[in-house]
């Protein structure tokens, strides 16, 4: 964990030619653009929760929607920035084996790991889209008195996991291209 501490600045990779390069750059731009709403969501959630303290104590207003609104914003910020974090290899794993295995085995290991992670994310996003579809069709809401529609967080979760899946697909393609070049 590295709360607010970045061990190294994000590395700049050499531009990759062809389709793969275009896909990569598009993904990069999309991830960076999506960071803006995520940052705003963080600030908004902090603002809403602070407001709720003041509303209750100074204006004696009932606070019924603030917690839920903050939950939606923070869930949104988490899932939408997931692909960016993946692009920075920010979802940490245990790299204990990396030092033991030979470079060739490591290369294949990383491809298999990325395929498995990508498969998991795409499965997860598929199930999230069906969840979204159901919530949308049946007009599901949360059980609180404010009762906002549930398709909002579900769609965000589905979109976020789809993007993480695509980012992992990009990693796999990049690794395979590198493997071909090495031959």
């Amino acid at each position, binding site marked *: 964990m590295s709360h607010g501490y970045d061990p190294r600045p994000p590395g700049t990779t050499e531009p990759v030619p062809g389709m793969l390069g275009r896909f990569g750059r598009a993904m990069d731009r999309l991830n960076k653009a999506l960071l803006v709403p995520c940052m705003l969501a963080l600030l908004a959630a902090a603002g809403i*929760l602070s407001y709720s303290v003041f509303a209750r104590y100074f204006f004696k207003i009932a606070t019924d929607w603030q917690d839920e609104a903050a939950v939606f914003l923070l*869930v949104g910020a988490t899932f939408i920035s997931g692909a960016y974090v993946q692009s920075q290899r920010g979802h940490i794993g245990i790299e204990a084996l990396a030092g033991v295995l030979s470079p060739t085995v490591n290369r294949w290991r990383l491809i298999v790991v990325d395929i498995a992670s990508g498969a998991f994310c795409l499965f997860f996003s598929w199930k999230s889209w069906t969840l979204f579809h159901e919530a949308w069709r049946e007009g599901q809401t949360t059980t609180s008195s404010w009762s906002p529609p549930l398709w909002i967080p579900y769609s965000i*979760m589905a979109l976020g996991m789809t993007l993480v899946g695509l980012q992992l697909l990009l990693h796999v393609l990049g690794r395979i291209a590198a493997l071909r070049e090495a031959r």
Partner: protein
Amino acid sequence: MSVLGIGLLYGAATLLLMMSGMSIAFALGGVAVIFMYFFMPASSLDTVTQNVYEEMASITLLSIPLFILKGAAIGKSAAGRDLYLALHAWMHRIPGGLGIANVFACGLFAAMAGSSPATCSAIGSAGIPEMRSRGYSGGFAAGIIAAGGTLGILLPPSITMILFAVAAEQSLGRLFLAGIGPGVLLVVLFSLYATWRYRVEYRAAEASHAAGGEKSAYLGQHVYTLREKVEMLPRVLPFVILLIGVMVALYGGYATPSETAGLGAVLALVLIATVYGLWRPSQLSPILVSTLRESTMLMFIIGMSLLYSYVMSYLHISQSAAEWIVGLALSKWLLLTVILLMVLVLGFFLPPVSIILMTAPIILPPLKAAGFDLIWFGVVMTIVMEMGLIHPPVGLNIFVIKNIAPDIPLRDVVWGVMPFVGLMLSAIVLCCFFPAIATAFPDAVMGVSTK
């Protein structure tokens, strides 16, 4: 297949996927989904995402990104350096005062930022060069900062404790307070050690100077005037006020823990804007991006860990394992020792968040049955996980130190932190003999617990 068979398979699959180098979040989620497919009704796979969402959509858990935002805001400003300089000016006359100032600065900063690595880098980047220029050995300086930084997960608001409170269904406010006593105990132990080690190194420097060797920087003195000391205060006070203000809001009953997180983040941003002039979008966006990196990574692990423990409990693995441990009829303290050793070993590889969520359903029922207070155990478990933060092979804080002081050999850093691992161990033993170190403060503030 028997529960034992499934349980062993579950453990083996987790180990395999984790060791493959897959991200912790995806490895946990993957294991859960595979076992859902093979051992649970087909419909459970359809609701897997709903399950994750419902577990995650808790405002207590989602206060984590906001606590991280507060920490990042303070961590990226010059507050750490100012805090450290002020403490140093006031303490430099005490033998080993510089080392003690670093320990105190780590403790105070940890309480504001709530994070170990952020504390290490904020205090260490000013403190380590200063200590070394005054003659402290590299390992000693690195040890003080690495160990001081671990206070971040013990002193409130600690993210680790938020997760423990959720997993153990305990009061977060009480748990936060319970961390303060042991936190102060560690600060005292670290300070005593710093004084002793300072004297040893000082005498060695004196002896080598007397023998005609080079005059060590230890022997030079710098004296601060009262005016200099007083001038240091205004830059530190706002942050101390933030620290106290947030605590008052929480324990005065004005705000829930999650509202405290939001309030703390807003106040921290306002403070760095007014004190350090950090308010432009270009200055704020690095703070927000590093918050997102950190919190998204954590929330993914948390969400998937929750799914992982849901599957484990649906398949009766956690219950059976817990019953098995209870059935062993170990004596109370042997049980505690075994569990803490397991947490310690896991801590060598896994971040505290996943340790808590993965092990809580297994280890908490036996501990409860043996009559341990779970708030007290949460504190002791946190100290054990602090040891994992400074212990090789993963020891995150060691790597943070390597980053801010690359010229101290890793060997020196590792040997420099080892005495602190011993001090933490003695703090745990003290907490076992005198549980009141942890429980007295929450009992005094919130009334004696009925649990």
